[in-house]
């Protein structure tokens, strides 16, 4: 057996694949063979290494050199220079290794500063190989749980950890599990909500693509705690690679006896099924998701009953977000106290963000709860693109809030964001530089809601249409002060009377944009 001299980790996620990662991979393997280096250089696929918008990205170890925007044409030069001659190819190197980029064991010293719970393996392991996940202590938590913990113990540990849902509502995860666990009935279901549709959000996609086994393990633990024997992952139809990766991972887990009947010779049986959506933002609402899963239109249901009592096919059901479930194995493996060592007293743990828009290095980051917006933008995303001034940010996607410069130093967690807390879940941070047009952005937000309203209830169906009519008028400087008031008035009524969170959402972006950028919007009034 020969000694591998260099590892080339090629980032394979939807972003790099669309930038041509497959072609680069092919060229790389061929070129390495051509140079007779096959035994010395290992080409490994990994999930997102944390960068986006940088084309095809790869990291060469042990040097830890990052290359971006690699094309197949670059490959011969790169192989010859770096892999054969040992001279890193300057012209393709990332100027500065982004902070949010992959944390390897060599860089473990940075862990304190760069806590990685959810994304621990993303960009480090080959997501298509279960052995790599296992080598990183994967499936240890479920192994421990099944051999030495009762379901109640798992639940208790998660309760002590203070984990709350990372999908939006920030509801205590263990409490949700407990409701379903206590609900009468033998058949219970666990659903993983991977219908990530909030504009600007793609963290769940990168988790699914980068570390699908972590989700599977999280679901196993949740299923064990709740008493469910079937799990479903509802993934939006546009996420082709996520679906492919997860299905592969599920098949591997089944092969290893980690899914199926009497897992690890315990009495616990659990299996996971993937469900593909077909384009409906509202299916991110848990009861609409359940309807869709049952083969219906994705209309939200009347509550009560809540899913914990009567969910999928009328059975007690827990619906958890991908990121939430991805925390669970780490909590069980390392303990609740360890988890509480991250984040703030009231909001332990980390949060995964997608930071996009006018920033220097858009990407995926994981930061402790309570990190300020300023740090996220300037420390992790390289500041504003082109050295421009920060104008504001839209946090949490369309259903989110506009924040102005005076919010830069607010600690980002569910407590400190107060009335904006719900927007943290999606983790989308859309940064605007001084040139950005707030009205234009608000217009896009309101069009989004009109397009995505399910149409079931009058306040949302008609309200979103009226909002669009008004903002379209304001956007072309034909609106009046009264139109602006109407925006607030309608969205306020919608917030009080809409059937589900979708119709309740427009109020926040409207009121926050007026709060922080009222002058700019006012200047558009005729």
């Amino acid at each position, binding site marked *: 057996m020969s000694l591998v001299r260099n590892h080339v980790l090629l980032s394979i996620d939807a972003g790099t694949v669309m930038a041509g990662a497959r072609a680069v991979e092919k060229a790389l393997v061929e070129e390495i063979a051509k140079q007779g280096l096959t035994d010395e250089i290992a080409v490994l696929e990994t999930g997102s290494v944390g960068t986006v918008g940088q084309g095809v990205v790869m990291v060469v170890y042990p040097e830890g050199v990052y290359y971006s925007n690699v094309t197949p044409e670059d490959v011969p030069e790169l192989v010859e220079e770096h892999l054969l001659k040992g001279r890193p190819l300057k012209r393709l190197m990332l100027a500065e290794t982004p902070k949010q980029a992959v944390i390897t064991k060599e860089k473990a010293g940075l862990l304190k500063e760069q806590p990685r719970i959810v994304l621990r393996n993303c960009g480090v392991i080959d997501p298509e190989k279960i052995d790599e996940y296992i080598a990183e202590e994967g499936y240890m938590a479920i192994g421990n749980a099944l051999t030495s913990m009762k379901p109640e113990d798992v639940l208790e540990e998660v309760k002590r950890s203070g984990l709350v849902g990372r999908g939006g509502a920030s509801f205590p995860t263990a409490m949700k599990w407990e409701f379903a666990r206590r609900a009468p009935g033998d058949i219970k279901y666990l659903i993983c909500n991977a219908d990530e549709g909030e504009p600007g959000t793609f963290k769940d996609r990168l988790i699914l693509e980068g570390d699908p086994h972590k989700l599977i393990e999280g679901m196993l633990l949740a299923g064990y705690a709740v008493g469910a024997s079937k799990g479903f992952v509802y993934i939006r139809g546009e996420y082709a690679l996520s679906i492919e990766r997860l299905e592969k991972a599920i098949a591997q887990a089944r092969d290893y006896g980690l899914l199926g009947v009497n897992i690890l010779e315990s009495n616990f049986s659990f299996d996971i099924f993937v469900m593909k*959506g*077909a384009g409906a933002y509202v299916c991110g609402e848990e009861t609409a998701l359940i309807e869709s899963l049952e*083969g219906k239109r994705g209309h939200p249901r009347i509550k009560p009953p809540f899913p914990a009592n009567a969910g999928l096919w009328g059975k007690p059901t827990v619906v958890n977000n991908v990121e939430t479930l991805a925390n669970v194995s780490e909590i069980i493996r390392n303990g609740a106290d360890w988890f509480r060592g991250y984040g703030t007293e009231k909001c332990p743990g980390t949060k995964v963000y997608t930071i996009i828009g006018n920033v220097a290095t858009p990407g995926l980051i994981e930061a402790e709860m309570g990190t300020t917006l300023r740090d996220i933008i300037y420390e992790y995303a390289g500041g504003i693109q082109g050295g421009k001034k920060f104008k504001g940010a839209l946090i949490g996607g369309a259903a989110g809030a506009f924040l102005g410069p005076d919010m830069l130093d607010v600690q980002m967690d569910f407590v400190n964001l107060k009335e904006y807390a719900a927007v943290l879940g999606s983790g*989308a941070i859309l940064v605007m530089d001084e040139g950005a047009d707030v009205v234009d952005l608000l217009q896009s937000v309101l069009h989004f809601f009109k397009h995505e309203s399910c149409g079931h209830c009058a306040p949302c169906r008609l309200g979103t249409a009226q909002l669009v009519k008004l903002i379209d008028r304001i956007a072309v400087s034909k609106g009046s002060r009264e139109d602006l008031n109407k925006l607030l008035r309608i969205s306020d009524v919608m917030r009080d009377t809409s059937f589900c969170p979708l119709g309740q959402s427009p109020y926040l972006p409207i009121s926050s944009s007026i709060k922080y950028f009222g002058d700019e919007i006012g200047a558009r009034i005729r």
Partner: protein
Amino acid sequence: MYREAILKKFRPSLDNILYILHDLQDNNPQRYLGKDDIRVTAEYLNVPYSYVHSVASFYTMFSLEPRGSNIIRLCDSPPCHLMGSKSLLKYLKDALKVDIGGTTKDGKFTLELTSCLGACGVAPAMMINDEMVGNLTPERVDAILERRRKES
């Protein structure tokens, strides 16, 4: 006949309806769900014809109108909007000489808008059939259209 083969891949259970519709649409030469697609699904799942139509019409990934061989779905959610999707839409409309939802005369392209594709890191982005393309500029759009024209 190909429809029967598709149906047989799935248990005749209502929770498979989206999978079945995806598969039927992908295999329809005009990339849409026609009356026959709706009918066979209704028969297979033992649900009313109107039900299948109602479900299909809810989800934006399904079309009930014939479409071109390349379906362009340009993202117009706020992140792409911020990064210039509006001008790209105009560019695409002009380049293809179609409006939103329209199909080019040669049947090669249908232009649609879509909500967030989760490709915000490379905004503005679009999907062309199953392929995601990001960091769009008029030049890139031209190149992509040209390639697709040659392929089909």
